[in-house]
């Protein structure tokens, strides 16, 4: 006899939480450490080769984690939007080295190109690391890992709820926009017209959000949110495997080694 959806759900929650991928199932804090160590290496080693190369490493990890295509898009967009600007700014402002493109005071020099690449790649490595982390790990799992090491559930509520609030605000804004249009307040047309609609749209959205927050606090209180004492969790992250610790140790040591090496050089 086929399992009902309910039975399947109960079984799923009864087992350890899994996203179906060994990298994504790593303990979130250990994964965070690994990714941070890689970013540290990218920044510590001088020059641009390692920094750019690390970007490629992140993309590979993204694919290994099964989130490759989405992450690649984000990565490229990051470079296109931010990386490029950083590169150009740095390249144009560096004075030393052979001039490649004469543009007077903002001439492009060989040093400029190198510096620019280095600066952009280093910053991008850090951003890419953060983006990779959040592409691989759901906020919920990060919160669970934090709670396991003693972070208060209130903190995780605030963080998680904030993300949801943004979506809620968007939905409320759409309704309020419609309501004010339906009243005769013009919202389409020139900039001036739209600006006039600003306050009538913003105020109800804000007020609704405020009272919703208060009501939600009371609703959560009814779910024993304010109770002092031990909590349990439906979703259970699996315990970290031994190899996760090994990978973390290796990467952290490598990061330390490069940092020290770079300082000595």
């Amino acid at each position, binding site marked *: 006899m086929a399992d009902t959806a309910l039975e399947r759900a109960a079984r799923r929650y009864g087992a350890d939480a899994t996203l179906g991928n060994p990298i994504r199932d790593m303990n979130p804090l250990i994964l965070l450490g690994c990714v941070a160590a890689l970013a540290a290496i990218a920044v510590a080693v001088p020059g641009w080769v390692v920094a750019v190369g690390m970007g490629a490493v992140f993309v590979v990890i993204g694919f290994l984690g099964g989130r490759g295509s989405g992450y690649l898009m984000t990565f490229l967009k990051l470079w296109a939007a931010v990386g490029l600007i950083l590169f150009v700014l740095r390249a144009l402002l560096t004075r030393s080295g052979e001039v490649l493109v004469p543009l007077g005071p903002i001439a492009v020099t060989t040093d400029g190109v190198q510096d620019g690449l280095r600066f952009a790649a280093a910053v991008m490595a850090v951003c890419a690391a953060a983006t990779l982390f959040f592409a691989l790990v759901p906020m919920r799992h990060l919160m669970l890992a934090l709670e396991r090491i003693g972070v208060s559930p209130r903190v995780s509520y605030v963080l998680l709820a904030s993300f949801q609030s943004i979506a809620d605000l968007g939905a409320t804004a759409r309704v309020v926009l419609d309501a004010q249009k339906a009243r005769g307040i013009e919202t389409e047309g020139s900039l001036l017209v739209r600006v006039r609609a600003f306050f009538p749209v913003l105020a109800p959205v804000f007020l609704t959000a405020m009272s919703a927050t208060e009501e939600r606090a009371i609703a959560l209180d009814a779910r024993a949110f*304010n109770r002092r004492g031990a909590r*349990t969790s439906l979703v259970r992250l699996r315990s970290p495997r031994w190899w996760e610790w090994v990978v973390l140790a290796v990467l952290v040591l490598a990061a330390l080694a490069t940092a020290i090496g770079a300082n000595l050089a």
Partner: protein
Amino acid sequence: MTLANLHDVRFTYAFSERPALDGLSLQWEEGRVHGVVGLNASGKSTLCALLRGIIPHFHSGELTGQVEILGRELSEWDPAELSTTIGCVFDNPFTQISGIRDTVFEEIAIGLENLGMPRDELIDRVVAVVRRLGIEHLVEKNPNGLSGGQRQKVAFASIIAMDAEVMVIDEPTSQLDPESSEEVFEIIHGLKDAGKSIVLVEHKIDLLAAYADTITVLREGAVAMSGPTRDVLGAPELPSFGVRPPEVVELAVRLSGDGRDLGVMPMTRAEATRAVGTRMEEAHRAH
């Protein structure tokens, strides 16, 4: 033990000029469904907030008078303990969903997690509640994408899972369509059968007539009438308190008014049908 024993309670919200509760006294027994009706701003929601301990802990103001809940003075109750002893569901389906869980199953589990229930027991309890309310088809859905009626059912499930002895339910159907409203009332009926004590504020007087054991009419922050449903909803003074009687009561009153008294005060369509049917037979035999 009495569910609630209130004597001469007065409460004024901070920054407010007029009292929301003004000399309110009532006594309610456990294990019953107590309907609360009255004009808007007659103090119904304030009364609910008081029973839940939201007043004076969340909403500050001046509170005087005696308030005893389940045999204990309100001031003696630990706020956290009170909120788990008295479950509450109110009218906004939107704000009763936490917003921080991805599936309905996880949403219902929140209260039990906070109570520190062991995981296996927790899962069993959620499964039981889901079955009881017939929401199996919703378990894997994202709570933030549900309709109003569905959210309200999930809100009920989340509170029922915590198995509180008492439920304070404030206008649960005001944003729901008739079908969802009836489903909610059936849930409430199920709770009563399970021996829970329920305080239910509602405008839908026809449904209330069918399910409530007692009715308390509030007016300007005090109790105008209180007693068994049949006595209160059949009383001629009821409309003067701004409460519209159930359709079948209005029918009986109109018939009585021009000499066609039914002999009973029906509370439901079934009772009215029987009463009118009897009259028809008598009229038939009289010819």
